[in-house]
């Protein structure tokens, strides 16, 4: 009896602390939405109001039309979908080679790939810029300010190769032997046996690639100059710098920029959390 009461009380204390934590994560989101719904004068009141006096939705269309947000969204979706498709193909193929073939230099090449993961993006951002500037094709400045700069360098992802290879290595040896004995070609083996058995691992790769691309900032900031190819994060950052005092507009833009991922998150939280914590994040 005594034990049970103590346990219950402790449980309440645990929940109280956890709820304080949860509030600290939710309140900034509430503040974002709340501010986006405030009208002109209310935005400049000191102290700020917790609940908007009347719900003004005007900030949303105004923000949406002030700069080409529809274009930014289209750019981000186009870039993210291209990269997801590319990463799945290149990682799937190379992980397949690493897992199922013996060939000269296999370990060396694999370790060479892995070693590039130790070098963080800011280290090679400047030399990449110089390289892209000198590549043929693209526009006036080489690949700079061109979709190719946003997409092509990200079409392979070493950690995805690593992840898929680990998954492929977990296949029973008998399965491979049986396929070889039956005269199954490697391509057929990949498409008929390996890929259908790898749906979970491929989903993981797709989710984190999509989310990381959607949220990436430093790279697109550096390689884009014009509104026509700018993705959403860079467009939003410029909008924030130009409209610095228009808090209602800024928060409305912030809300619609995060809405697509948050909607996806509420439908697939388990997969998304697992996918991101498998792989590490970018800042």
């Amino acid at each position, binding site marked *: 009896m005594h034990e049970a009461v103590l346990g219950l009380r402790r449980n309440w204390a*645990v929940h109280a602390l*956890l709820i304080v*934590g*949860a509030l600290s*994560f*939710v*309140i*900034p*989101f509430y*503040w974002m939405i709340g501010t986006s719904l405030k009208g002109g004068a209310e935005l*400049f*009141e*000191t*102290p*700020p109001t917790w609940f908007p006096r009347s719900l003004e939705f005007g900030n949303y269309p105004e923000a949406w039309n002030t700069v080409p947000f529809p274009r930014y969204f289209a750019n981000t979706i186009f870039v993210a979908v291209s990269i997801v498709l590319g990463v799945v*193909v290149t990682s799937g193929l*190379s992980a*397949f080679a*690493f897992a199922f*073939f013996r*060939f000269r230099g*296999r370990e060396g090449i694999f370790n060479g*790939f892995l070693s590039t993961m*130790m070098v*963080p993006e*800011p*280290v*090679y*951002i*400047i*030399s*990449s*810029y*110089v*390289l892209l500037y*000198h590549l043929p094709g693209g526009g006036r400045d080489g690949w700079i300010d061109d979709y190719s700069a946003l997409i*092509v360098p990200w079409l*392979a992802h*070493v950690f995805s190769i690593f992840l898929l290879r680990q998954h492929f290595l977990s296949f029973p040896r008998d399965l491979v032997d049986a396929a070889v004995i039956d005269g199954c070609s*490697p391509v057929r083996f990949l498409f008929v046996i390996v890929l259908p058995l790898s749906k979970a691992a491929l989903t993981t790769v797709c989710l984190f690639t999509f989310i990381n691309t*959607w*949220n990436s900032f430093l790279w697109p*900031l*550096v390689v884009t100059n014009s509104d026509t190819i700018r993705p959403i*994060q860079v467009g*939003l*950052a410029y909008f*924030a*710098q130009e409209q610095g005092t228009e*808090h209602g507009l800024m*928060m409305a833009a912030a809300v619609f*920029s*995060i809405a697509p*991922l948050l909607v996806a998150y509420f439908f697939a*939280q388990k997969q998304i*959390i697992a996918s*991101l*914590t498998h792989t590490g*994040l970018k*800042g």
Partner: protein
Amino acid sequence: MPYAFLAPAAVIIVLFRLLPIVAALGLSFFDASFGKIRAFVGLAQYSELFGDPAFWRSAGNTLWFVLGCVPLSVASSLFFALLLRKGVAGLGFYRTTYFLPVVTSFVAVSMVWKLIFHTRVGLANSVLAGLGIEPLQWLDEPTGIFQLAVAGLGWDLPAWAHGPSLALVCVILVSVWRGIGYNVVIFLAGLQSIPEHYYEAARIDGAGRVGIFRNVTWPLLTPTTFYVVVMTMILSFQVFAPIYLMTGPPIGGPLGTTNVIVYYLFDEGFGAGGNMGYASAVALVLFAVILVLTLFQRKVVEKRVHYA
């Protein structure tokens, strides 16, 4: 045959990872700007860099940023993970909520926090006012937090003891806030991998809650803790987006107290000066620091860390 499967990934990785990494090293030996390489200068840019007070200031700010983020993030996420470990009712709800900022872009997150720290219409000062505390300047405050803490007593610390500016501390808090959910999930996985019979044995031996934490949980959790510490450290050294979006104008302000190393190299390389060679030298110094951390992690993980 296997080489054909390997080729697409290999072309991208060689051209857009290996080549730029090698080129970064090469570029640091040249005086170069926006695609124009002017002259070979050898190690001159490195000696210029180490003699540049602006570089050391941004290195110092970065160090404060790392020293602030790592303990705060590790302690708070371990704290929440320990609360969640017992499988309390609503675990899924809490985890979903704590993870919310992780899937949100740093751009949007920085924008709302900049507004919360706004000196006139921000939530932070209105909470202080509710508690009867004088408003603070938050992101506009260049004074170090240690000096701010003792200023009320009429003390004046020497400049080197002022600590990071309140503005930098605000950015630290936002970065920690954004990453907690991620570290909580990692810690939860680590805690769940500790076999239950260790706890049973400890309880039978009459160990209390503190004893169990000190002698069972903490030592068996070291591989996870170590991973979280090093990963948080490596990511903190690369902080950019919240500095770019929350501070200034000019970015890195007030008075340069939030100018961190990645913003410094970004500004040197892509700013008005366009010193891409010099910026590459900065990048290489950053890489050296991160490489040492990575190698240190591998060595320690191999040798000293206890595996459950």
